[in-house]
């Protein structure tokens, strides 16, 4: 019998400030050297479970524990957070906030500094740990110059203490772009194979984690463990659908094609999945047939960029000869890795920055002559983090804010605010204080506060970041309604390929400060060259197409088409 690294027995936990327990009846044993994924939507208790292992519970977050949890045979309650930190390394979700040092080396050394290890002993250890994650050439770098993925690597190196044999990753993919996310998954996998580390990954993005092998998946919902199985078993069941977790795209495709999922081997890896004869036939039949040719959009142009150059510092162009136009009522994804220039393009459209060369037209007028405020009446920008936008204390005041500062007539303010609140289904909550609502609702508030200005275009920066599948779907449905019923043009700035695939018609791809593609979404996603240059990740549909010897474009197009018809039927 393998030795248990972590054992929960009839475990329950209730935060001091909450009425109901967050965890109930947890019985779980994780063996040494295992690699376990804890899956669940927001609020399912998966992070709380991890915090019970690393000692943040009960030492930093107080509450009542029932039952027992042991780490390497030691009851956590009787240990201290410091003793536990020597056995359990935790990488938090926010790779930026957990970077406490002023340089890479310092951050990696932080735990050793706290142990009062002499500096001469620290230096070689820092180098060794940095090499494990491939950051040995960046030891002197400051956090400001690092990408999210690099910061995360540093965080991993920082918890690789000598006795640490359990590693917890709390939503390691949340802040990373797809390519970096894939690298992170590979790095975690290397750690689990080289050392004898027990690895616990907490995520809701199943498909991305399954990029590499996982021993076991534990599905949580509402504070309970609802399933504890191998990935294959989980994929064959209907649990994912029942508990609001996004299943891998290729599985969805197989279900659309009417395949029976149960009979296939190696279901969790699209590269070595073994299709049964029957399923292969069904898939081929499903993807066969010429999809209808979409009509090009010929409505009036709302935004047009012509040969735009932009640089923050002289000589280093962030945007290089960028041209594209956006028509009324379109849904567009602006994709590219972090730092490729997509956010800068959005800033230029909003007038926050002005181009050094080239021309931007908004609603047919030259943006040069428009102030930020005037552009704001045509183009609304919704930031990624709603907490950075909300200024007022109640929902109604927040939504009315943009009109109040313009000195609009009070009757008109009321009328327009009511309309915006209704469009976002917030009207019944209008007098609620802003800080009592959920993250997804806050996002709605920020959209409503822009909608009162009746913009033609809405720019949404990373709308899917930091949200589970369920609230992501809610927001997308809501945006879809805005687009369909109010004819608002939607621009998503994102690196989420699923989002682009399911919710947009056209994709503009940025790479190294240039636009490298501006085409229909399926064409972009089927173009391996573009995806590689933009440092994005292929969706599993592409791989599925290769496995079936079909042209990827046809497969992706057929899939989108089918999915949209399914959606309209609902």
């Amino acid at each position: 019998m393998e030795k248990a690294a972590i054992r929960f027995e009839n475990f329950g936990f209730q935060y001091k400030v909450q009425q109901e327990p967050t965890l109930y009846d947890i019985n779980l044993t994780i063996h040494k050297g295992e690699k376990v994924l804890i899956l669940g939507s927001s609020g399912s208790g998966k992070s709380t479970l991890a915090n019970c292992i690393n000692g943040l519970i009960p030492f930093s977050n107080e509450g009542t524990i029932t039952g027992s949890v042991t780490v390497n045979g030691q009851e956590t309650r009787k240990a201290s957070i410091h003793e536990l930190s020597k056995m359990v390394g935790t990488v938090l979700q926010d790779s930026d906030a957990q970077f406490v040092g002023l340089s890479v080396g310092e951050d990696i050394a932080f735990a050793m500094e706290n142990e009062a290890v002499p500096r001469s002993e620290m230096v070689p250890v820092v180098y060794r740990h940095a090499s494990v994650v491939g950051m040995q050439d960046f030891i002197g770098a400051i956090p400001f110059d690092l990408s999210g993925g690099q910061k995360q690597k540093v965080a991993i190196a920082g918890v690789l203490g000598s006795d640490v044999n359990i590693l917890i990753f709390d939503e390691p993919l949340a802040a990373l772009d797809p390519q970096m996310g894939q690298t992170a998954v590979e790095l975690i996998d290397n750690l689990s194979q080289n050392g004898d580390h027990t690895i616990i990954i907490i995520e809701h993005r199943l498909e991305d984690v399954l990029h590499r092998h996982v021993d076991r998946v534990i599905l949580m919902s509402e504070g309970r463990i609802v399933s504890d199985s191998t990935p294959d078993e989980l994929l064959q069941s209907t649990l994912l659908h029942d508990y609001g977790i996004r299943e891998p795209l290729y599985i969805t495709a197989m279900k659309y094609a009417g395949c029976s999922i149960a009979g296939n081997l190696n279901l969790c890896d699209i590269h070595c999945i073994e299709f049964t004869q029957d399923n292969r036939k069904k898939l081929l039949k499903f993807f066969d047939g010429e999809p209808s040719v979409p009509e090009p959009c010929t409505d009036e142009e709302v935004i047009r960029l012509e040969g735009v150059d932009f640089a923050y510092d002289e000589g280093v162009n962030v945007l290089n000869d960028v041209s594209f136009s956006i028509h009324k009522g379109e849904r567009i994804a602006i994709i590219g890795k972090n730092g490729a220039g997509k956010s800068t393009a959005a800033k230029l459209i909003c007038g926050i920055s002005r181009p050094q060369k080239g021309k931007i037209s908004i609603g047919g007028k030259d943006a040069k002559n428009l102030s930020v405020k005037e552009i704001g009446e045509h183009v609304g920008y919704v930031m990624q983090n709603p907490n950075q936008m909300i200024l007022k204390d109640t929902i109604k005041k927040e939504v009315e804010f943009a009109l109040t500062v313009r000195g609009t007539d009070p009757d008109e303010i009321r009328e327009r605010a009511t309309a915006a609140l209704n469009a976002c289904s917030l009207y019944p909550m209008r007098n609620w204080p802003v800080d009592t609502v959920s993250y997804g609702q806050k996002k709605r508030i920020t959209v409503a506060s822009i909608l009162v200005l009746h913009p033609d275009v809405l720019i949404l920066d990373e709308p899917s970041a930091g949200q589970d599948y369920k609230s992501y779907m809610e927001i997308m449905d809501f945006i879809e309604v805005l687009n369909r019923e109010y004819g608002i043009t939607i621009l998503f700035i994102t690196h989420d390929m699923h989002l682009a695939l399911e919710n947009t018609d056209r994709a503009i791809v940025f790479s190294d400060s240039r636009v490298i593609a501006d085409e229909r979404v399926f064409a972009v996603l089927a173009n391996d060259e573009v995806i590689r240059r933009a440092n994005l990740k292929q969706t599993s549909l592409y791989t599925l197409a290769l496995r079936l010897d079909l042209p990827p474009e046809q497969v992706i197009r057929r899939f989108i088409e089918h999915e949209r018809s399914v959606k309209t039927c609902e």
Partner: protein
Amino acid sequence: MLFVLFTVAIIVTFDIRVLLPLMAFPFAAIISMKPNYKPLIFLFSFMFVTVGIIGTIMLLVVSPDVGMTHVGSHTVIWQVTDRLYVTKETLWYVLVTFTKRVASFATVIAFVLMTTPSEFASGLSFLHMPYKVCIIVSLAYRTIPDIARRFIDIRNSMQMRGVELNSKRTSLGKRLKYTGAMLVPLIISSFGKVETIANAMDLRGFGRLKKRTWYAEHELTRADRIARAFSAVFAAAILFYIIYTKIINPYPVTMWCPFVKLENITKINVIDTIFFMKWFD
């Protein structure tokens, strides 16, 4: 340490013969580090305009005879009106004080460029500050750029919603009001970070032992020992200089001036030498 000594020396002396070599040190230090000169030049020219030009004009207008009290003679070179005139001594005084300011400024810059904040934090702990205080200093440095970035984001989003922050179109009062409003999201989003940072530190054993070590700390190298010896010598020299000029062989006035002969000094300013505060002009 050398930095503190330097500052003291520059504040104490009014003698340009001492000031000029003192000034050379920090400049040499700055140049040896090959920094990014652009912001530095901006800082220096900013200082030159405010302290140098505006300060001089104000001084000439308000008390044209200030040189008299410091140098001890009175040679008018340009009489504008009865109340407004320029004396050689005042010009000299202006030159010396300006040199002094440039020198102290350069020293500060050299110090800032030389030390990374974490070296500063570990240096503080070397001076027996409790390490929790030191880590706060270091964390503050760490988070300032992040907060600044977030502030810019918030300001941008407000502008897009129609808040006019352009100084030409809005009154100062209104702009202040909106800047105040911006603090709400800034503080709220920063609080979230604080919790994560605290957790991240707890999880890596922060605060377990009474003491901690510093990765950024330097072991004493030979250069450090030399620097220390040098500082000691330097401190002694300054002390001697103070004692010599003020007590053993007091120079009659606060300032040495090349074109004023000792016997020409008409006014002896004893009070200045007693009230040491005068040095901090």
